[in-house]
């Protein structure tokens, strides 16, 4: 399963989750098969309007099955639901590694 994380900075499993989805500076995509990662700069964060839908569009193009952020705006929620991407909210100071373990163990609930 490929999981995307909204992050503030960094490029590895120790990066911290960003409080916002749409205006997160970048996304970290983790393939849970081998924990390989890929960084995706969030161009939508620079948009005047529609950062949430723009980011959702970008994420859905990358074939991820789930996305983690501090929280999702209403339009981003609609867009990600339509794209059938599972959403998880996680506290902003947690690391990607911690949250990934929780998702795999099924202890973090889907939105």
């Amino acid at each position, binding site marked *: 399963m490929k999981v995307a994380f909204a992050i503030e900075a960094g490029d590895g499993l120790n990066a911290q989750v960003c409080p916002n989805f749409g205006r997160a500076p970048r996304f970290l995509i983790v393939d849970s098969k081998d924990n390989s990662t890929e960084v995706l700069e969030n161009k939508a964060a620079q948009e005047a309007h*529609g950062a949430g839908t723009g980011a959702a569009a970008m994420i859905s193009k990358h074939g991820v099955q789930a996305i983690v952020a501090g929280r999702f705006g209403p339009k981003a929620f*609609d867009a990600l639901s339509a794209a059938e991407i599972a959403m998880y909210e996680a506290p902003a100071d947690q690391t990607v590694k911690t949250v990934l373990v929780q998702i795999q163990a099924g202890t973090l609930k889907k939105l």
Partner: protein
Amino acid sequence: MRIAIASGKGGTGKTLIATSLAVHWAKQGKAVTYVDADVEEPNGHLFLRPTFEKTTRHTVPVPRLAGFCDGCAKCQDACAFNAIIALKERVQVFDELCHSCGACVNACPHNSLKLQPRELGDLRHGMAKNINFIDGLLDVGEARATPLIEGVVEAADGELVIIDSPPGASCPAVTAIRGADIAVLITEPTLFGVHDLDLAVQVCQKLNVPPIIVLNRANLGGDMMDAIKATGAPLVAQIDFDPQISVATARGELAIDVVPGFADAIANIADAIVVSEVVS
């Protein structure tokens, strides 16, 4: 002549003066059209009490999928407003973000997107005695006021059109003031009032609409004459605060009909508008 009644700040007395001017000119036998372009909070009808004769639903075009889609996302890439996203074999449109430009329609390689009307609110026509009355009423929950303001302003036709504009200096105000022959900016002698007046004057200059200023509640607050002068627009009339005007307005009465002396103050403004229009 098209006259926009505007102000930077809300609550300065735009509707009071716009409706009073309509009544003043109608009493002189002129054919007047009053347009309430403050579609988010229209209240001109509370004072002029028109009988509505025709109500139409105003629409804006938005894209809808009407054909084959392979999820190629060309529409998504073409949209500058993030208003359309491509899914597997369909698209999702976020109407609130859409600017109706049609770039997605042009971009679709299968010609599958069509622009279809989406309702924004009511456009109402009526008569208030011999005043031609038009207003717009944005649907509750609707975020895009500008296309309805455009519709309301375009619906107004006639020799003397008074446009009661929304407050502010952003898109809604710009849309209402654009195309007017003159803008009457209503302000009050407060720091906020004059700060926002300056922005309204700048809007008028950008739109090439000559602005004139009316100072309302002139006897309340501080001396703002230097700051008003600094905006570069002429101050043509002043109205003093009179509790009788506030009481009449709170009751939905026309102050021009019930408050002694107010009709003269409005007549002064009307004359000033006509003179300024001739000069410019």
